[in-house]
């Protein structure tokens, strides 16, 4: 279970998140809020990609920035700049070798990404970048999947497949989105991350 304990995040003197405490004991969550309220930052923190300024975040009792915990986490976000000098295939191969998982051939086929595999990341279109980002998050079938605006830029087929896949995903899912398919989806517990610079708790 993902637990946030008194988590704060400051960028210089600007508090983006302040004293957040929450237990993610459900299966699917959609984090909503206006632009700039800290949704992506929250995902980056919970994936262990950024360090908290105060407090701690644990998954199954272990701090999220530890390598062993990261094996169980997967994140897709446009904020993560991928090594653009590698091809998409090299990136996926390295990811799979790290996580000791099989190469995600089926996922690649579903996302219609086969043609782009030999393309360098720097030459990928926005939609293709989103796909490689999703593939990296999904390839090792993490227990906790974090998706930042997962449908942005996706073509129709990939979008339909992804929504269906997320719907049936066996692990825990945290999504940030403004799309109705998530915000008005009864399967997703809505978390409103409001007034972040003054307020300090999730409003459910």
């Amino acid at each position, binding site marked *: 279970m993902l637990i946030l304990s008194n988590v704060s995040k400051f960028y210089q003197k600007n508090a983006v998140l302040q004293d957040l405490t929450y237990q993610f004991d459900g299966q699917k969550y959609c984090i909503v809020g206006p632009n700039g309220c800290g949704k992506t930052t929250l995902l980056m923190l919970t994936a262990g990609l950024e360090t908290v300024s105060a407090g701690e975040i644990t998954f199954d009792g272990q701090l999220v*920035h530890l390598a062993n915990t990261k094996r169980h986490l997967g994140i897709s976000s446009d904020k*993560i*700049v*991928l090594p653009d*000098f590698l091809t998409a295939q090299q990136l996926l191969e390295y990811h799979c070798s790290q996580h000791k998982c099989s190469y995600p051939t089926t996922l690649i086929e579903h996302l219609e990404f086969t043609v782009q595999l030999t393309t360098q990341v720097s030459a990928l279109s926005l939609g293709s970048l989103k796909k490689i980002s999703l593939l990296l998050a999904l390839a090792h079938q993490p227990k906790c999947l974090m998706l930042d605006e997962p449908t942005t830029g996706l073509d129709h087929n990939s979008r339909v497949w992804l929504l269906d896949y997320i719907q049936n995903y066996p692990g825990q899912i945290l999504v940030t989105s403004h799309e109705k398919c998530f915000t008005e989806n009864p399967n997703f517990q809505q978390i409103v991350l409001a007034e972040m610079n003054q307020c300090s708790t999730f409003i459910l």
Partner: protein
Amino acid sequence: MQYFHFMKGYLQLRVKIYYHELRQMLPAVGQLIAFLLSILYLAISASILTALISLSVIADINTPIEQRIIYQSVYLFLLYFLIRIQKNAILGLNYQHYLATLPIPVKLKHINTVLLTIVAGNLLLLAPLFLLTFIPDWATFISQIHFPIFALSTLIVAWLCLKNQSLPWLSLLFAPLVFLLGFKGNSLSAVGFNTSLLLLLVVEAYYEPVLFISNKVLRVTYYFQIRWIAIKKDPANALIRIFCCGLFIGLVAYVQYKIGQVANGYVQILSCWVLAIIIGSYQFDNEEFYQHYPHYLSGLLNQFRTRYCLDILPAMFIALLSSVAMYYCLNFSLIIITLLPFGVLITMICVSKFNRSFFIIPSLLYALFMYIL
């Protein structure tokens, strides 16, 4: 009239981009340049002048072939690097999409690129062409044809540098080495060598054989492979350092050869320290890499410490190679030579800890300590 108006405005824009890019580039190597200028200011100006003076050796048709190969290769190498490090600025690569939106004729864009290349290549590019104007008649031109071919080679090197991604290893490294080893004595004429080199340069301009080989997609399973691909993708900084090391060791060897004795302790310590700073400052590239992909790297399962140690290894390897070369070829003292790898290590750690503000001083203190010893 409108054409010239276009030309003027576009040239002004390209010149502004060029100087802006150079200004952006300078702080990145600012301290290293300041350091080199303060320690080696005579050597730097001398090396530029030496390159120009070497034109007299290159122009002389009676120059022995071994000497010609060395002089011409070093000259073309210097020219290549001078333009290579300014490539982004010359072509305005960071603004290429914006520049492409401008309704400027292609010919005009090429003219501007040529002008900026001349500015960037300055003396090294212009001097051979300038010397050509001193050829009095066609008869002399034909009898001295090796030099016009060399002048043409300089232009091709400049063009190739802007056009291609990879260093022309075949024509600038491999071929001269083969010629040097294969044609000892004067069995190869100046015209023959220069023509062969020119042909190779033209071939490499179109086919990039080395790039063709290196483009084979490798399976990536380890972190060091990622770093290696990153270095190959943008090799300028690593190559500049390797080139500086080679040049510096060459200068020390030349000094030793001229004075006919083993360099004294002071010169040895100074040489090791300068090399340690040049090689160790490679850590700036590593730090830039960390800053460019912070979230991706944070998501990796290996530890930062492991990645840090792996990233230090290439520089340490170059330091070790240089140490071995200086120990065996230049008779450096074994105790003093240890300054090089340790100096590199100290510099790299200091770059990480203190960034640009303090990375030279610790290795300098270490060098002084060695001197006192």
